[in-house]
C-alpha cells in the first residue's frame, strides 16, 4: 500500500468550545496514530530533515524507534540533542524547519515530525521523571546563566551534562522566560509541561535562582570576580516592548503584548480573583501586529471573554509572520483579520479609557529591504473601530539592564549583544550570549540552538583555559 501523502490528523478541541477555555488546543497523538505516522517516514539515505533542526535532533533515528514501538529509546535519542522536547514538539515552527526539508513535503504533507516529538516526550513525562542527578567532579567549574528562557535552559542542560555546575539567574519569580510569561497555557501548558521540563533540569543538578535581576542584584563582573563563576552565558531575551509612537498609547486599556500576556500567563489573571492580578479586556479588542505573539494575544482575549477580536496588520495575508497553524487556529476561533490596515491613532474618553482605534487602509508596493512588499497608505481611507482594549504586538527589543552594567561587552546599534554566530562569544572574555538578546526576537528553537552552541563553546573555552 502506498504511503499517505497527508499527515495523520492530531485531535483538537472544537474551536467554539476551546475559545472559551484555557485548556490545550491540540491534544496530541495516541500510540496508534503515532506509529502509523512514523511509518510514513521513508528513512531517507540522506535525511534532509536534520539540516532543518537548529539543535540537530536525529530525526530519522527517533522516528524509526517509534515504528518499533521502542518509545523509551526514541525519547532518549531526542533528548541527546534536545533538552526540552515536549516544549519544542508544541511550539517549534516545524513547517519552516525540519518538516520543510522532508522529502514528502515536495509531494504532499511532510512527516509530522513535531507531533511525533511531542508524542514521545509526553509519553515519557506521563511515566514520571527518571532524570538522574549528575555526579560532579570535585573540581567542577561553575558557570552562570542569566535568564531562564529557551536559550538559557538549553545552555544549562548541555553544560550540566558536560559536568559544569550551573546556576541560572531569573529576574521573575518563575523560571521559563517566554515559555512561562509569553506563550499561553492553551498552546503550552505551564504546570504539566514547562514546569516539569524545568524540574527535570533541576533534578540533573542545575540550580535556578529566581527573583535575581542581573544588572541590579549583581553584575556580570561580580559573578566572575567574587562569586567564582568561570564563565557566564547571557540569555536575557527580547524583553523590551515596542510601542508604535502614535497618539493615545497611554490610554487605559492599551497594553503591550508583553504586559497582556504576562498578566494572563505568568500571573494567571484568567483566574482572577483567586489569583490576585487583574486584567482588563472588555467586549472589543484590537491586537496590532501579525506575528505569533499577536495571535497569542488575540486568542487569549477571546478566552478572557471578549466578543469581537481583531488582528490589525499593515501587510497582507501572505506577509503575516505568524505560523500558518496559529493563523488557522485563530481564524477557526473567530478572530477578525483586518489585513492591510495600519493604526494611526488611539482615541479615548475624558476618563482616560481607550474607545476607538483609528486605522488607515494600506496597499502593497514594491518589495522593501526585508524582501516583503512595502505597505503604502491609501490617502483618505481612515476609519475608526470601536474598541475597549488595544494590545500592541509589534515586536520587542533587547532589555538594556545587563549590557549597561557590563563594561567591555559590545552591543550593536539596536542594543543587542554582539556575539559570534557559531560560539556565542562576546567581546568580553569568558562571557557568552545567545538567543533573542543577540538576534532580536526570533523563535524558541533558534534560541535553544544558540544555547547549545554556546555550551559547547564555553566547554571548549574553559578546557583551553585550564591547560
Amino acid at each position, binding site marked *: 500500500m502506498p504511503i499517505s501523502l497527508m499527515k495523520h490528523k492530531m485531535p483538537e478541541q472544537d474551536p467554539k468550545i476551546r475559545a472559551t477555555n484555557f485548556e490545550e488546543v491540540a491534544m496530541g497523538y495516541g500510540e496508534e496514530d503515532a506509529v502509523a505516522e512514523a511509518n510514513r517516514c521513508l528513512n531517507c539515505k540522506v535525511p534532509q530533515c536534520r539540516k532543518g533542526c537548529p539543535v540537530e535532533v536525529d530525526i530519522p533515528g527517533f522516528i524509526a524507534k517509534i515504528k518499533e514501538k521502542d518509545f523509551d529509546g526514541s525519547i532518549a535519542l531526542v533528548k541527546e540533542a534536545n533538552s526540552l522536547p515536549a516544549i519544542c514538539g508544541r511550539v517549534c515552527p516545524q513547517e519552516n524547519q525540519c518538516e520543510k526539508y522532508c522529502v514528502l513535503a515536495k509531494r504532499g504533507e511532510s512527516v509530522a515530525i513535531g507531533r511525533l516529538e511531542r508524542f514521545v516526550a509526553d509519553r515519557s513525562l506521563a511515566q514520571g521523571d527518571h532524570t538522574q542527578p549528575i555526579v560532579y567532579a570535585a573540581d567542577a567549574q561553575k558557570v552562570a546563566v542569566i535568564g531562564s528562557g529557551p536559550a538559557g535552559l538549553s545552555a544549562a542542560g548541555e553544560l550540566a551534562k558536560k559536568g559544569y555546575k550551573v546556576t541560572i539567574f531569573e*529576574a521573575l519569580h518563575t523560571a521559563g522566560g517566554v515559555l512561562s510569561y509569553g506563550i499561553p497555557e492553551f498552546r503550552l501548558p505551564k504546570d504539566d509541561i514547562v514546569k516539569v521540563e524545568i524540574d527535570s533540569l533541576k533534578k540533573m543538578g542545575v540550580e535556578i535562582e529566581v527573583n535575581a535581576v542581573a544588572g541590579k542584584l549583581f553584575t556580570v563582573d561580580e559573578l566572575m570576580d567574587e562569586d567564582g563563576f568561570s564563565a557566564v552565558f547571557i540569555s536575557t531575551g527580547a524583553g523590551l516592548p515596542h510601542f508604535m509612537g502614535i497618539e493615545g498609547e497611554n490610554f487605559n486599556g492599551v497594553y503591550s503584548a508583553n504586559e497582556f500576556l504576562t498578566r494572563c500567563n505568568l500571573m494567571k489573571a484568567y483566574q482572577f480573583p483567586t489569583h490576585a492580578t487583574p486584567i482588563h479586556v472588555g467586549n472589543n479588542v484590537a491586537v496590532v501586529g501579525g506575528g505569533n505573539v499577536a495571535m497569542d494575544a488575540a486568542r487569549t482575549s477571546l478566552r478572557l471573554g471578549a466578543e469581537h477580536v481583531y488582528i490589525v496588520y499593515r501587510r497582507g495575508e501572505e506577509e503575516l509572520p505568524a505560523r500558518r497553524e496559529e493563523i488557522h487556529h485563530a481564524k477557526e476561533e473567530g478572530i477578525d483579520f483586518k489585513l492591510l490596515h495600519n493604526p494611526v491613532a488611539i482615541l479615548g474618553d475624558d476618563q*482616560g479609557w481607550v474607545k476607538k482605534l483609528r486605522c488607515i487602509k494600506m496597499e502593497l508596493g514594491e518589495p522593501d529591504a526585508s524582501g516583503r512588499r512595502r505597505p503604502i497608505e491609501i490617502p483618505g481611507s481612515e476609519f475608526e473601530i470601536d474598541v475597549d482594549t488595544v494590545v500592541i504586538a509589534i515586536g520587542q527589543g533587547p532589555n538594556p539592564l545587563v549590557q549597561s552594567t557590563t563594561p567591555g561587552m559590545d552591543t550593536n546599534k539596536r542594543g543587542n549583544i554582539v556575539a559570534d554566530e557559531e560560539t556565542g562569544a562576546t567581546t568580553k572574555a569568558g562571557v557568552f550570549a545567545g538567543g533573542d538578546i543577540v538576534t532580536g526576537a526570533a523563535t524558541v528553537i533558534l534560541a535553544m540552538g544558540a544555547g547549545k552552541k554556546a555550551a559547547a563553546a564555553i566547554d571548549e573555552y574553559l578546557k583551553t583555559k585550564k591547560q
Partner: protein
Amino acid sequence: MFKILKKQVLSPGVLLFDLEAPRIAKKAEPGQFVILRVNDEGERVPLTIADFNRDKGTITIIFQEVGASTQLLGALNEGESILDLVGPLGKKTHIEPDMGTIVCIGGGIGVAPVYPIARGLKQAGNKVISIMGAKSKEILIFEDEMKAVSDEVYVTTDDGSYGIKGFVTTALQQLIDKGVKIAEVIAIGPVVMMRSVAEATRPYGIHTVVSLNPIMVDGTGMCGGCRVQIGNESKFACVDGPEFDAHQVDFKGLMMRQRTYKTQEAQEKDHVCRCEQQGLAKGADCECQSH
C-alpha cells in the same frame, strides 16, 4: 522565602516590616524599590525601600493596607515569610556632596521612602530641610527618624492637630517666601501632593524631583505597564525612574492610568473567602488565599 524579622504598626493601617534580604540590602540605594509577592496567587506589589541595613542584611518596607494584596501582606506576623522579593529595582536618587540646600518632602507614608534619601543627602554633606505632611497627628510617621537626618523639620497637618495647619506646600511656600535658597526639592507622596509641589516650585524654577509609583508588573522594563509621559517622551517608571523631573511629568495621565483596575479591585474586595463560606476561619494562611 523572605522572613519578616520585625513588624510594627506605625499608625492605623500603616505597617512597617523589616525583611531578611541580605543580598538586596547589600545593593540597595536611596530611591530604589522592591517588588514582593506574598504567596503563589499573589500580585507583584512594588514598594519603595524605606530603609536598608547592610550589616544586619535587612530592608525595611512601609505600606498601607488599602487593597486585597496589602491586607494579605499586613496579616502576616513576625517570623513568617513572604514568597518572593526582588530588587533593588529602579535608579538610585542622584546624591552628591555640595548640592546645597535640599528640601525633602514626604506626604503620608511617602515620608518612608524620603527618609533614606534625606539621610543620604545629609551624609553627603548637604543641608537638608524636611517637610512632613499628614492628615492629622495620629497618622504622622517617622518623625524621629526624619529629625535625626535633617537640619530642619517642618510638620504640616491638614486639620492643624500638629505643626503647621495646611499642606506640605504651605510649609514649602513659607521657605520660598523667607528667601531660603533651595537647590532642589524632592517630593514623595500621593500623586496630587506631588503635583501640587511641582506647581509650587515651577514659577521659581526650582529643580524638583518626584518618585512615581504607577501600576507595574515585572519592574524590569519588560511589560511597559508603568509608562508615564515625561515631557515629549513615554518613559518606563521601573527602569527609567522611579524618580523624574516633576516639571515634566504628566500627572493627569498618571492618575488616570492608576485607576485602570478600580472595577476589579472592588470586585476583589467583594469576593467572599471560600473558607468562610464553608464556615472555616478566614486568615492569611487559609488555602483559598482569596481574601
